[in-house]
């Protein structure tokens, strides 16, 4: 093994361990964050892009691990690499941001650009330690699950309040929309077009797939009713021929199935 820094396909590989005593180690893959349209929360020169971060590794732990390379400003964790900031939940009760689970990717934003270079040149044979001196503790196992269970308490009044405000806002919006639609009913725009709304005398047909299907089906049925069958002798002949052709085709299909079965030796009873 090379003792200095190891690079695989542009990524610097650095081992990391839970603590000094642990036997196995994980390998972090990292390089400079470089995208065309950089977001201000991840400045191009000061951000280190890290792959293969274990699920139990939190922002604080990462911050601790990379503090050796220089002061860390923030850490962003994602399921997949993105240039934008982490999604923030709008509500405590109705999560909108995706849950970050499993192995994840991280963006470590340093205070100084030189820290990124320092991190890039970390040696392969000195592992980073997650649970060293002064490190934030990792909660896992029974301890974590018990505390998760204990934390699962619903704050009823807050929830009720949140719902109430949201619904009031929603109702107001719907009301506004309706009033606007009502007001514009029958009023032509600049070019003279009139938009049909739900509130006028002649309601517009809904623009849905199901509705279109129903209309075209009706049309087909009507056409079929009008058609004369078995009127001309050529029609009669044709139906007979069709019948035989049908039988033949079925026969052919069956024969094919039989030959398949024969291949699978399905005709040996014992």
């Amino acid at each position: 093994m090379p003792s200095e820094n190891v690079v695989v396909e542009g990524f610097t590989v650095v081992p990391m361990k839970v603590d000094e005593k642990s036997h196995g180690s994980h390998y972090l893959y990292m390089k400079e964050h470089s995208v065309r349209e950089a977001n201000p929360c991840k400045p191009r020169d000061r951000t280190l892009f890290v792959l293969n971060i274990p699920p139990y590794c939190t922002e604080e732990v990462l911050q601790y691990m990379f503090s050796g390379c220089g002061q860390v400003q923030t850490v962003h964790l994602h399921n997949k690499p993105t240039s934008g900031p982490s999604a923030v939940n709008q509500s405590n009760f109705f999560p909108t941001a995706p849950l970050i689970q499993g192995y994840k990717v991280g963006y470590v934003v340093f205070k100084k650009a030189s820290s990124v270079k320092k991190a890039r040149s970390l040696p392969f044979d000195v592992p980073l330690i997650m649970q060293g001196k002064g490190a934030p503790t990792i909660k896992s196992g029974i301890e974590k699950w018990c505390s998760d269970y204990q934390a699962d308490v619903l704050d009823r009044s807050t929830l009720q309040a949140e719902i109430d405000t949201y619904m009031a806002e929603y109702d107001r919006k719907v009301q506004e929309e309706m009033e606007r639609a009502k007001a514009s009913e029958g009023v032509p725009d600049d070019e003279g077009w009139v938009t049909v709304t739900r509130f006028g005398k002649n309601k517009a047909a809904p623009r849905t797939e199901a509705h279109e299907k129903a209309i075209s089906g009706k049309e087909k049925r009507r056409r079929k009713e009008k058609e004369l069958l078995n009127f001309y002798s050529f029609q009669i002949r044709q139906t007979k021929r069709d019948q035989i052709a049908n039988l033949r085709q079925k026969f052919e299909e069956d024969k094919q199935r039989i030959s398949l079965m024969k291949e699978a030796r399905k005709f040996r009873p014992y």
Partner: protein
Amino acid sequence: MSSEEEMSDSGEDSDVSATVEDSDVDNSEAEMDSVGEEEEEEEQAEITTGKIEHDSRKRFLEPSIDLPEGVPASKVSRNNKGDLYRPPTNEELNELKETENLFHSTLFRLQITELLAEVIMKEKRRKRIEEAVEFLKTALLNLKPGKKYELTDRKLLTKLGVPVPMEMEPESDKGRFQFQPPSSVNVTGSFSAKICAKPAVSVDLVLSMPKECFDGMDHLNQRYLRKRAIYLAIVAKALRQKPEVTDVKVSYHNGNIGDHRPVTVHLYAVPETGTFKLSRFQLEKNNVRASWWEGQDGTDASELPTPFYNTSILEDISMTTEVPGLEKISGSQGLREGIILLKVWLSQRGLNKGYGSFSNHVMMMYVLYLLNQRKLNTLMSSYQVFRNTLLKFSESSWTDTGISLCTGSQDSNSPLVVDFHRHFDVVKHEASQAIAVLEDRHTDSFDKLFMKKVPFHFTFDHILHIDMSSDLDQMVRKLKVESRVADHGGSRLLACRSAILVLMEKALGQRVLLIQACPRVPPEWDVTEPPPPEDEASRLTVGLTLDPEFAFSAVEFREFWGSVCELRRFQDGAICEAVLWMQKAPVHAGIPANCVQYIGGQLNSMLCLPVTMSNEPNTLPFGTGDEQSADLMKAYDDVCKKLRQLTDLPLTINSVQGVSPCFRFTEVFPPLPCTFRHTEERSLEHGMKRYVPTPDKPCPLYTHILKVVCTLEGSGKWPDDLVAMKRLKAAFHLQLGDAIHTTFNLPTRPSVNYVDILKDNYVFRLVLAYTREISLLKSVYSSDGKLMKRDTEEALKLERETIALPRLTSILHGTTVRFAKRWVCGHMLGDHIHPMALELVVASLYLSPAPYTPPRSGLVGFLRFLDFLTTFDWKSSPLLVNLNNEFTDADLSEIPTKFSKERSNLPLMFISTPLDPYSQHWTKEVPSAAVLTRLVLLAAKSLAVLQRDLMQMEKQDLTVVFRPSLAIFNLVIHLNEKQLPRRLECLDVAMESDRVGYGKASDKERFPVTDFDPAQIFLNELKVSHVNHSRPESCEGDQFLLALNIEGVIEDIKLMGRGLVTAIEINHTKTS
């Protein structure tokens, strides 16, 4: 020939009519060689079968690979469209018409043709056999007459030089015997009628023993049978001296000669016509004098009739009688093929072998009878012959009216042979089943009728073994069948058999449809050896098929069983009389109860929990959990009632339906009320009315959450926006919780997505559902603003939970599922297959049970489940589960078509139900091909073990079937038992001290720790975090090879499962 003669063919067996069989009878060396070659060819063919199967397995593993047909049918038809419209020839038209008129369907016809081609003997081979038979005939006719012997001579047997295939006890009283060459040798039976069916091709040769061999009173006291035995022994000895005859074996009559040599020749020795007067063998006549049998003087007045003995001799006599109309059969192709189909059908069900069976000969005679009655005619197709015969059979009742082949029948003496009748009932039952299968247009009747084997223990709901080894004599006395023993030629087992069956029939009355003793194939042995002693130590295996209407209710039951029975409550709430077989019942009717092994009970221990009801002595212990289920259902009904009583809700609840498996009785271990004695395991949270787990204490026992879906009434006031709808629903949950709490004073715990309520120590989780939410989730706007409905992942999930599950819960139920689930979980595949998929598979066993009846006991259901898994071809056939018969005809034809067209896009395990015709709900993600293959393999192995063990008398350890093999895993993680809330459910908690007491609820106010299973959480965490475990391994130039980082994985597992994981075992053979 009178009817009884015809019947006697299968009715008898007790006499030892020896048959000599030889094979490879060829008179030239060269021909022998060619036969050998043919055999070799066959073997090679066998090997290629194996290969093909192997290939298909491979294909099975790779679902993305296209189906083997390569060119789909539609494409072919398009290619030769002109061909389809060419003018039809007369022949073609005829054939198409014929198929339409005479057969079930084109496919069925083709299948039958293929089957017949496989089974019928080829002309070339037939010629060779004929030559061999001719040779044998001349050899037999040229035998030399022997010396005269006295039958009473003790040295007779040693003088003969060959062992006589019969027991000579007690000694013969008088008579002499001189060997004479047979007066004639004829070929009879299937070979002469050209209806031989492979693989057991046999030729029946009838040797007529000349009159000179017999004296006037030879029909008495087994003298005839003994003479016949000696005659055959001499013939066998003579044949052995011929170099061409390789193998001579002796067997009891009706035995199927099991070796698969090209030809077997059965020799039947029969007396020449006119030797005995037929009237001597009337059923009511006695031909075995008790005085001789018991070796003492008796008065003739008390002689009992010996029907078995009589019919067995009659059968011999009738063998030479020419049956009119046999040439009609050999002349008509349809009839011949029909009989062959019937033969295949019989032998797949094992009905034509063993004592008291419905042999091929009887079947042929029956067809002949129908032909004479003009129910069949010679122009019928094979399908019509098959169908009509079975139809007539299922309609007939031979117990009331006998049938006769004789046109001028004197007296249709209804046959009395009890055993035959029982067997007849079985055949009749099977026949009606077969007709039902034929009637059903939707099933693949061909496979079920002709290709599927129907073993004994799959057919019956319950199987009992009765140990006959002890007290056989005592049993004979108690059953009062002493006189019958003489009739059966001294076999006490056979004498008891029918008596026991009659007794059981009486005992079980209407509650059983069918009772059948397992037919035993008589042994065969080499001529040079003495006959094996009769297997008196063997057991009687009896199968019972229950009648669902009467099975669980009994009126006369109590009278019969007397004090043994007791009141038991079953899971459907019915209170019944039942005999608890597990208990030691007193000796009844000569059958000691501990000699009767009730196999079904053995598996039930799989469903037991080691739990005692310590505080309430009146409650029942956890048996198979049926009582617990009933208790739970009571609480559930109460909850439903209460929900409907709620008035102060803005919208009413339209329907309430439980969706947890326990509501359809399919939870492996029905949930117990959460009244643990071990309260110290949990901590009470301050200010909250609930218990919580803490890391420093052992994990509390698992409390199930019982999910109940409540559908709300429709209303125009719901918002059209999903986000707003979610918020409103949450508000609804809060309100529902409050309403229940204030109205009924029950503890509730509302949440955003559900409300938990604690009722009778069960935790119910109410989930509100609104159907419009699904349609909103499905709606997608196209680029031009058109609204479309598309199945999105989220919509499907919601649909599954709020529509599909409640409906399925109202349909499905059963114990079999519990066995099936336990088995799958036992093999650690529980996470890799959706439990609902298993439930649907089991449901299909009940809905289309052909060729059996629907299973009515858990064990037989489980056996069939395993059998289904091993035999069903998931790759090329869809499983249609026609719940409530909701599939229309159009569906039934459309689904298979679509299935075969889009096979590669559809789930591997394709289960179609009326709710979910394209298997989108339960089998889309799991199981994977590897898991399914493993499941099939495991099922085959488990089935083999079960089959072996079930037919054994001793109590077997059936848990083996449920034990996983850990050899295939790379890592085995050992968990801390104290932290497993479901520790009681494992296979090996037998220790009495481990039992956990359930008692009265001490605390009705506080919620227990619900749905908290560290092992499951741990597993889920591991599942989502197994992404990247590679590390750079070695350096070659500037290239790094990535390898599995085992140490890293172990470190991860240790950290993530802190407190739960005790040890990790590495399987080095796998990882290195």
